[in-house]
């Protein structure tokens, strides 16, 4: 990683798999993770191999992560927000999250 000098922008902090990262306001989740040289964002649902962002413009869907409990989010199209919880997406996603029915049981 080699950072080019930019006009200063406010910082936000996000969590990636539990670990806290600093990011610049106005940048994508993918950019924030790549800045920390996290290249692999997920494993595929078909064979479980590692993948990371490829196109950075929203068309390849290889940057899918889980954001605040929602799977299949495009990291390259989602902008960082303070306190965001980002998780690597393993396979088709986390069954635990999927199977909870909490909002349904009053």
């Amino acid at each position, binding site marked *: 990683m080699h950072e080019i000098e930019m006009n200063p922008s406010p910082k936000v902090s996000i969590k990636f798999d539990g670990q806290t990262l600093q990011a610049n306001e106005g940048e994508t989740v993918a950019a924030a993770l790549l800045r920390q040289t996290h290249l692999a964002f997920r494993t595929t*649902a*078909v064979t479980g191999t590692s993948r990371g962002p490829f196109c950075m413009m929203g068309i390849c869907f290889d940057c899918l992560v889980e954001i605040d*409990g*929602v*799977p*299949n989010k495009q990291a390259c199209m989602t902008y960082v927000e303070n306190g965001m919880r980002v998780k690597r997406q393993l*396979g*088709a*996603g*986390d*069954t635990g999250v*999927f*199977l*909870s*029915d909490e*909002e*349904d*049981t009053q």
Partner: protein
Amino acid sequence: MSTSKQTADAIIVGGGLHGCATALYLAMRGINCAVLEKDYVGRHASGVNAGGVRRLGRALPELPLADTALSIWRNIEDLVDDDCGFESLGQIKVAENDAELSALKNRAKTVQDIGFSHEEIIDQKQLRELLPAVASHCIGGLYVNGDGHANPYRTVTAFKRKAISMGVRIFEQTPVNEIVRHGTNWLVKSPSVKIEAPIIVNCAGAWGGSIAAQLGDYAPVEAQALMLMITARMPRFVKPVVGSQGRALSFKQFDNGTVMMGGAYQGRAEPEQNNTHLSFNGLAKNACAATAMFPIMRHATIVRSWAGIEGVMPDNIPVIGAGSANGVYHAFGFSAHGFALGPLVGKIITDLIDGGDIELPIDAFRIRRFSQNKDT
């Protein structure tokens, strides 16, 4: 293009599941046949449907057929050398309130009264056991053990391949433009081939009405665009095929984790152009039903939706049987539930052609029902 001229014992118009299955059964009896398909085999309803193989909720006249068809599905590999992705994980129609549950109870009783015992009422606890992810307000349902689903395109392709291996000639990209009498034969014309045979079977699906007209029969078939949508892969959370008593929904998860949904709402069909258009207001209602019944579906992402052109009859049951002229047979207009019957109807038509006994009651499906109604 030069037009080749050929003969056969039987000609089948339409290379959907019914056309291919009929061809296969005829070939197994040594009856030499040719299938003419205007696009490619499985291009329409047979290749793009939801794959449901069910007795649950079937119109009563279809029940004996659906029951017999299921026994073929269970051994489908013996017939076509491919399991067609058939899985028998049951089908459930869910009730969300007492009124729905009592409607289901009535249905179960009606079915029992005509001698079938496959539909059983389940309570909330049994429902939860079968569908752990179902919303907690659902109170029970109607369950059929043994129903299931198969992979449509794989199925129709397996029938096609097996038919070809038995000597059936299948002509794709070959629209039948004209059918005329030629002595005691039917002469079928398309741009690339002319074929004549004493027997002709109309398996033209949504286009069956115009083929019937050329053969001297009348059937008011409507081409409808039935819509489906499918999600990205999800962890497996539901096994049986799920329907709803109170909402329009058919819902199933495949082995690979994708979830398919649809039901009731139509897009717009342009059968002449082979084209369909989707209605997102309709799909939105399916989405509403799916998220209400399975809260975990809220975060599911839809990656594709499509519509298939299906022939629907005014009374929602198909046309199956002989036509009025000699050598004419029909099997079309399956009204949104003909995939499950595919492996059986070809056999029925073959029995009719081959002069064998028909064990199953098919009178309700005769094509004359429409012209009789018209006359009175």
